[in-house]
């Protein structure tokens, strides 16, 4: 009955009472959706927090240090080790390490030229030889201090408990080492910077150039449409496939060039193409489609009135592009480039295929060097069985994040300067 009357009165706009209830229902629906979206955001925030928490808790924490030789036993006539003179330290060194190792140090830098600090460092490193016997996360260090102390007293009576920040100046400035306490990321950091430099130098001009061609010059014909479709699809190709491509083209086929042999920078008989140049070009290929697509979007967003204004004054197509289209689209192009480069910095898979070194203690000194990069260093450390390397990996992740944020921040600054300049201020 009521259904019927409703159906009859349901023609046209609803009556007042009915309408206010309808409005309330519509608003309720809206609130439910808002809550769903809020929950979605919350999931993202939680995931990010968990990630950061994980990294931070691994990067800092207590360690138990045990010395091979007790520094107190090295004291000379009651003077503690840290106050000994350079000559006394050198005597201790000579007495405790092998002649071969001594010669190696002499070769690195003659002892006559070394200062006291350098010799003291060698004594600490080679004679006292502190080892980490156990590590704890930040969480454990903060909340389970007593248990840790009890554990140490029971298991490692000689060990000293010490709070250690795995990210420290030493970590950033040391090279790779198989001894966790001495290991650092300098090589990987320089490797990453070099590779990114090559990537930007290659991908930015080529990508922006291709975008300009496709947007401004290319006719709308089947061939160009095919090219466009292919670029769009290439942006979704898994990165390891770019690694295979890079291996085939840059490492193998173009070996004389990428190894530097062609330029006489490497010995042709031992040269191989597993260099920074190959890696940079491969990552460049990887982000090229992204840069092209983003640059195209940015160029397309330039208002046509601006183009018409230029043409209307008798400008050639190139003058319009160079003076108006490019400057106006530059903030958008840079945004796309920033995103692409962030991706390239974190890429591991293609570089594994290319053959980045996993253990290398020599800084890269140019495009033709062997190299490792931060993500590979992290990957390599996480795959080690010892606990300490997990801490190192977490610390390296922090360094990688810092590098990423620094590069992004500088790119954003650059972009903002461009935007302000465009407003003609």
């Amino acid at each position, binding site marked *: 009955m009521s259904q019927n009357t409703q159906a009859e009165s349901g023609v046209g706009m609803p009556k007042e009472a009915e309408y206010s209830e309808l409005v309330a229902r519509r608003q309720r629906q809206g609130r439910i959706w808002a809550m769903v979206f809020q929950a979605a955001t919350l999931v993202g925030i939680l995931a990010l927090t968990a990630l950061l928490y994980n990294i931070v808790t691994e990067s800092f924490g207590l360690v138990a240090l045990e010395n091979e030789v007790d520094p107190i036993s090295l004291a000379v006539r009651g003077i503690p080790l840290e106050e000994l003179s350079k000559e006394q330290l050198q005597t201790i060194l000579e007495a405790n390490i092998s002649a071969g190792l001594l010669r190696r140090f002499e070769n690195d830098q003659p002892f006559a030229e070394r200062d006291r600090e350098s010799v003291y460092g060698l004594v600490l490193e080679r004679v006292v030889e502190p080892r980490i016997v156990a590590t704890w996360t930040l969480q454990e260090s903060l909340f389970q201090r007593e248990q840790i102390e009890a554990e140490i007293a029971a298991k490692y009576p000689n060990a000293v408990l010490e709070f250690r920040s795995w990210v420290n100046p030493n970590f950033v400035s040391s090279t790779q080492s198989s001894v966790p306490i001495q290991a650092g990321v300098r090589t990987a950091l320089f490797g990453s910077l070099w590779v990114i430099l090559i990537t930007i130098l290659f991908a930015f001009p080529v990508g922006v150039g291709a975008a300009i061609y496709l947007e401004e010059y290319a006719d709308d014909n089947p061939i160009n449409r095919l090219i466009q479709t292919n670029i769009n699809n290439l942006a979704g190709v898994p990165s390891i496939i770019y690694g295979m491509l890079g291996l085939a083209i840059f490492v193998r086929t173009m070996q004389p060039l990428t190894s530097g042999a062609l330029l006489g920078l490497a010995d042709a008989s031992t040269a191989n193409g597993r260099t920074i140049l190959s890696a940079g070009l491969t990552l460049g290929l990887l982000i090229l489609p992204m840069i092209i697509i983003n640059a195209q979007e940015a160029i397309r967003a330039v208002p046509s009135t601006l183009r018409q*204004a230029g043409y209307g*004054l*008798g400008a050639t197509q190139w003058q319009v592009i160079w003076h108006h289209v490019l400057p*106006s689209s530059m903030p958008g192009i840079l945004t796309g480039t920033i995103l692409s480069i962030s991706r390239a910095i974190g890429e591991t898979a293609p570089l594994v295929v290319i053959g980045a070194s996993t253990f290398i203690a020599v800084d890269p000194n140019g495009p033709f060097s062997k190299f490792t990069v931060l993500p590979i260093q992290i990957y390599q450390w996480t795959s080690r069985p010892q606990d300490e390397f997990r801490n190192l990996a977490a610390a390296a992740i922090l360094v990688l994040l810092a590098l990423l944020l620094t590069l992004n921040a500088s790119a954003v600054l650059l972009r903002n300067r461009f935007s302000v300049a465009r407003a*003609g*201020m």
Partner: protein
Amino acid sequence: MTITLERPMVRRKESPAPQANGGQYAIETNGLNIYYGAFHAVRNVEMKVARRKITAMIGPSGCGKSTVLRCFNRMNDLIPSARIEGEVLFQGENIYADYVDSVEVRRRIGMVFQKANPFPKSIYDNVAWGARINGFKGNVDNMVERSLRGAALWDEVKDKLQQSALGLSGGQQQRLCIARAIAVEPEIILMDEPASALDPIATLRIEDLMQELAKDYTIIVVTHNMQQAARVSDFTAFFSVDEQRTGHMVEFGPTDQIFTNPSDQRTEDYITGRFG
């Protein structure tokens, strides 16, 4: 400002020599048909635009008057599907001839658009840019001042030449666009509804300016505002649109005649507001 009317288009050696008579009219069209792809946008326009006069083009929306205007300086070339048949003679020379470069056409036949579109640069650079890229040599400061004075904008902006053009009001921006157009010393200025986005006072200033400019330049203006056409123009072309949505010119003549004694019923219906 010196304007050489009988200046022929730049030509290559193998191109035909310029006609002895530079042409009686600023713009003259012969059997002009415009297509967008398969769509016949405008048919058979025969128009003779007198020099140093203001010619208005009026008509209902979609009648193709803006399309015709854009043909006069080859702006339609920028639309890939656009195609024209017939001739557009600029001082007796067909601007669609093979040897003519559209860049030169647009330099000599300037354009002011419906919506003011200053470059996102300083006021000074807005005016200087067009002249610079066209190879202007000499005192740029003087040229900028001359152009801004020509557009009746100098007094308002002389103290803030280095500020962004985007900070100007709509009417000022439009006059800046006019200043920018006359800086490259064109012979004709095309105006596509130049005051349609402006308030009445700014509109009046633009109209005064147009009459001032007509002493030196040929002006062709598209407008939706019939009072404007009646107020400023010497000649008026009335365009209409047929059942196939193809635009065509119904009537062309002195403005007084079109508005007081039109020869075509459709013109009369339109200007008296009876148009359906």
